[in-house]
């Protein structure tokens, strides 16, 4: 029986045309993909080309571990900025991660569906507010509050962390909500049917089932925090010391580039590109750590 062969038989010409069409579309897609990737490669290559020589000239170790940043005298050490970026990002991750995840859990597990469909877009809307506005609110409200109630200059790691934490809320919340909503209802039902409470179900099943999505939310939020510049410049204080408390002012890698690029020339300018290289590497390392952690945890013997 012909019909049992499943596929209708095409004439050789038709088959040839089909193959031609497939080839055509896949080559277009290939070109698009390649140009997107090559764009990234070109940018990366450019930053490295501009930044790497001065780094090698100063010495990579000295460049990242020295605290002397006197561009006019040819001293390029960005250790304080690295610490600044790490401190501010960690702080932001604590604040934004906890708030964002909490927000997503409440929205998906303890709110009716219609409430989610209103609240989630409103939170996402916050992502559209320009960062300078966040910085401005930080300077006007947050910084004086910290100065008066906690001491220090107010412009500080803490202020930057709070501002950045709030700025990454939309990203973290939105992606976490998606991850939590993607958990099959059957898991929840199975847990509830065993006599678990909603909270136990959320904590012990739903959060675990959506772990990889939640890690992705954190990574993307973190990316936003590491890369943010304007708002941080406004509330961080931008001094060149390694911060010794969360109330101390800091300068981040991004702020360093933005603050000095306007007038830098020669080696100074190249050193700013080198700062960019370090930023690039840090982001790569953070992402790799986050990804490995999430993979390891899902394979871990989760006995404890």
């Amino acid at each position, binding site marked *: 029986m012909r019909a049992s062969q499943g596929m209708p038989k095409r004439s050789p010409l038709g088959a040839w045309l089909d193959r031609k069409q497939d080839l055509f579309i896949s080559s277009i897609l290939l070109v698009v993909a390649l140009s997107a990737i090559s764009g990234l490669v070109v940018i990366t290559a450019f930053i490295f080309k501009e930044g790497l020589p001065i780094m090698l000239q100063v010495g990579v170790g000295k460049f990242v571990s020295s605290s002397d940043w006197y561009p006019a005298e040819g001293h390029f050490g960005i250790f304080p900025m690295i610490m600044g970026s790490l401190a501010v990002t960690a702080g932001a991750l604590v604040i934004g991660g906890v708030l964002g995840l909490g927000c997503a859990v409440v929205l998906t597990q303890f709110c009716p569906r219609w409430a989610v469909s209103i609240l989630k877009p409103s939170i996402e809307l916050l992502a559209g507010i320009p960062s300078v506005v966040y910085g401005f609110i930080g300077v006007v409200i947050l910084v004086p509050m910290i100065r008066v109630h906690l001491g220090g200059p107010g412009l500080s790691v803490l202020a930057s962390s709070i501002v950045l934490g709030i700025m990454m809320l939309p990203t973290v919340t939105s992606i976490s909500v998606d991850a939590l909503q993607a958990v099959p209802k059957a898991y929840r039902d199975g847990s509830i049917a065993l006599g678990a409470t909603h909270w*136990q179900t959320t904590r012990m099943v739903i959060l675990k089932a959506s772990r990889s999505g939640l890690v992705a939310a954190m990574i993307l939020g973190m990316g936003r925090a590491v890369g943010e510049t304007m708002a941080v410049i406004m509330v961080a204080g931008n001094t060149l010391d390694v911060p010794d408390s969360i109330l101390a002012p800091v300068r981040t890698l991004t702020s360093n580039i933005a603050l000095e690029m306007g007038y830098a020339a020669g080696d100074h300018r190249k050193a700013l590109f080198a700062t960019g290289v370090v930023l690039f590497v840090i982001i790569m390392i953070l992402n790799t750590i986050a990804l490995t952690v999430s993979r390891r945890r899902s394979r871990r013997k989760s*006995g404890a």
Partner: protein
Amino acid sequence: MTAQHKIHSKDLNLWYGDFHALKDVSIAVRDRMITAIIGPSGCGKSTLLRCFNRMNDLNAAVRVQGGLFLDGQDCYGARLPLTQLRKRVGMVFQRPNPFPLSIFDNVAYGPRVHGVTGKDRLAEIVEQSLASTALWDVLKDRLWEPALDLSAEQQQRLCISRLVAVEPEVLLMDEPCSALDPIATEHIEELMRTLAEKYTIIIVTHNMQQAARISKETGFMLLGELVEFGQTEQVFTNPRDKRTEDYVTGRYG
């Protein structure tokens, strides 16, 4: 109701919004044996089953009226908290739904939820529960592998082990074999017969042979009503109601 009735309902009515899904259902399920509920699609079998462990409560549109009793105790009363009711009346779902955790954690989940913490105690419960579904020998070296890697039959067995681990009294099974092949189905049926020595089992099934094979008593539902309830043999060979007869002889639908 007499003492040997594990669960009984009295004039149970249920609405999904305006839709009257259960109409005056009065059923008395006896202890330590298998009771089957059959009926055409959409007649309310699953809805009735979900009443017994109050899973319908998760749906805000559902309204329930009438009495429901476990060992004579009101299931909606304050003396039987919801989590306790669900611990005592467990449920196996149509599609196997192990959690995306390790095999061990799946079985240990229920005990943990109900406050068992000791590592040794948990390991003991896991071993016993897996043994009760004949999984222990197969899986004892794979306890930390993801439960989702198991075959469909093993997953369904695991779901039953997970239930057994909280020491329930009643097992509700909503078409537990419909996602399984005939051989796996046979294995699960065998398992159910063994479990019926210790537990009260209520199974919803579309498969009339299955109901006839494994159950002692059978209820036939139609359009939200419990049309007939009695000894399985009597329901299948000598039904009292014309509608039951039409259904079991295949004349319905």
